[in-house]
């Protein structure tokens, strides 16, 4: 299987803070790859570097073999990378429906937009009930559904998901993870950043462990979950 996304020795800075110190990883077609690590390890920074919100100072980000680390975020979206950002970042004063429609900003065929919107409503019937409501009035779980639905409106090849389970009730967390798996089965390649390492390693094919800007472990998700270091640090087991 070919690598859809490849990071080579990526260094990213926030001012003087060296956030990513030579991160290298790859995501292959059809995979769910998870990136786990503690707060501040650089997980979100990795996703933000891929989608161009922050620029890598050194190293390469290759999407389908093409370097994209110099491109603007809106150009990267065009290539087929969707990003469900940390904290959901839905547009609070746009209606649910407008939030979805703006996800398909690059699609000019209104029939295609309608099709995708119906698909999103099928996936999340709750959004359909609330379609006229302002995004800011939704509950946390609904906002997460909206954020995922909005990214799917782009029909991306690769979906970057940043902490989709954060702050959600357990039943919703399960629902979100089921959704991630069904999206993957439907053909989406997914790079998943999670604090909930247990669930993330359950749904993922492969995983990487990030620690203060550096990758410390990687491999098959099931094997990673068995490693004592991982269990101790991220799964809360002795």
């Amino acid at each position, binding site marked *: 299987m070919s690598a859809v996304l490849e990071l080579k020795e990526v260094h990213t800075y926030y001012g003087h803070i060296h956030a990513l110190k030579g991160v290298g990883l790859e995501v292959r077609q059809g995979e769910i790859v998870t990136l786990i690590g503690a707060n501040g390890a650089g997980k979100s920074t990795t996703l933000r570097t891929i*989608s*161009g*919100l922050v620029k890598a100072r050194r190293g390469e980000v290759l999407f389908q073999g093409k370097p994209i680390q110099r491109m*603007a*975020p*809106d150009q990267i*979206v*065009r290539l087929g990378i969707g*990003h469900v*950002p940390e*904290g*959901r*970042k*839905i*547009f*609070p*004063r*746009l209606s649910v429906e*407008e939030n979805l*429609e*703006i*996800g398909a*900003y*690059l699609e000019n065929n209104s029939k295609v937009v309608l099709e995708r919107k119906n698909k999103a409503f099928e996936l999340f019937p709750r959004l359909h009930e609330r379609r006229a409501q302002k*995004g*800011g009035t939704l509950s946390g779980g609904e*906002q997460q559904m909206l954020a995922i639905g*909005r990214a799917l409106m*782009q029909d991306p090849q690769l979906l970057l998901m940043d902490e989709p389970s954060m702050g959600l009730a357990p039943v919703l967390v399960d629902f979100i993870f089921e959704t991630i798996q069904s999206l993957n089965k439907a053909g989406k390649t997914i790079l998943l950043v999670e604090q909930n390492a247990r669930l993330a390693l359950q749904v993922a094919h492969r995983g990487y462990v990030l620690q203060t800007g550096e990758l410390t472990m990687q491999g098959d998700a099931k094997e990673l979950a068995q490693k004592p270091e991982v269990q101790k640090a991220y799964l809360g087991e002795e």
Partner: protein
Amino acid sequence: MSLADLWSILPQTLLEGLLLGFVYAMIALGYTMVYGVLELINFAHSEIFMIGGVAGLEVFRYLSNGKGLEVHNPFLLLFLALVVGGGVAGLVAVLVERLAYRPLRKRGTINRLVPLITAIGVSFLLQDLVRAIEALWHNEFFLRYPTYPLLEKTFFLPLGMTIQTKAILVIVIAVLMLLGLNYLVNHTKLGRAIRAVAQDMNTAALMGINPDAIISRTFLIGGSLGGVAGVLFGLMYTVISPYSGFLPGIKAFTAAVLGGIGNIPGAVLGGLVLGQLETVGGTYLSFLTAGNFGSEYASVLAFLTLILILLFRPQGLLGQNVGEKV
């Protein structure tokens, strides 16, 4: 003046307030839209308004100077002046953003004072640039809009009100522009993108929106509205100079704050309220103060309003549209 006299001039006063209010509303929209996307008070907007007025006047002059192309129909002349005034003002606004504000934004300037002071600098630059151009071209820079009997024709309305053709045109054009803007912002793809960029620029970029392009268009729209307002202002109040943007500009800014800066319906409401305050205040002030303060204090009322609003309701009448954190 007796109480009955004061009462009888009230309808006319309100009508004139409405007229002024529409002009303020159209300028205020430029401030509020730019603030919405950039959180920048674009003080150069008052000069964009003035440039619209001057460009419109040049159209009147050029097409009736007896050399070359001539247009005699004042309605057509006005239409052309509005198109050129709005267009030129919109383009200058885009250029100002491109050359002055964008480089600062790209440099990642965090200090909010830097773009603000830049805006003030641009404001002076544009004033004197227009002055230089007009002085070289016409040897004068205090310019006067032409008057046409057709546009000055007075109609009598009930309640003792009178209205001139040009005033009717100002109201009609302003209402059309406001309705058009409302449609554009709330019912088109571009409008949705403008609102998205205003709420969260980074996330908008993740939707494939190029924020710079949207910001440019926001300046174009706001600048054009300001330019059209400039032509209408010139038509109503006849005199325009490179410095006549300042006062209406700062009052329109007050209107935008009054309605809630960043809030589009707020800017319209603020403009209309301020127009009334100023006109009604100007008319009745001398009576209320037993002749101590005359209509020359009308502007003071506008700024007093600004101070009171900032003190007691800083978010404005309709509230400030700031992206609430969720």
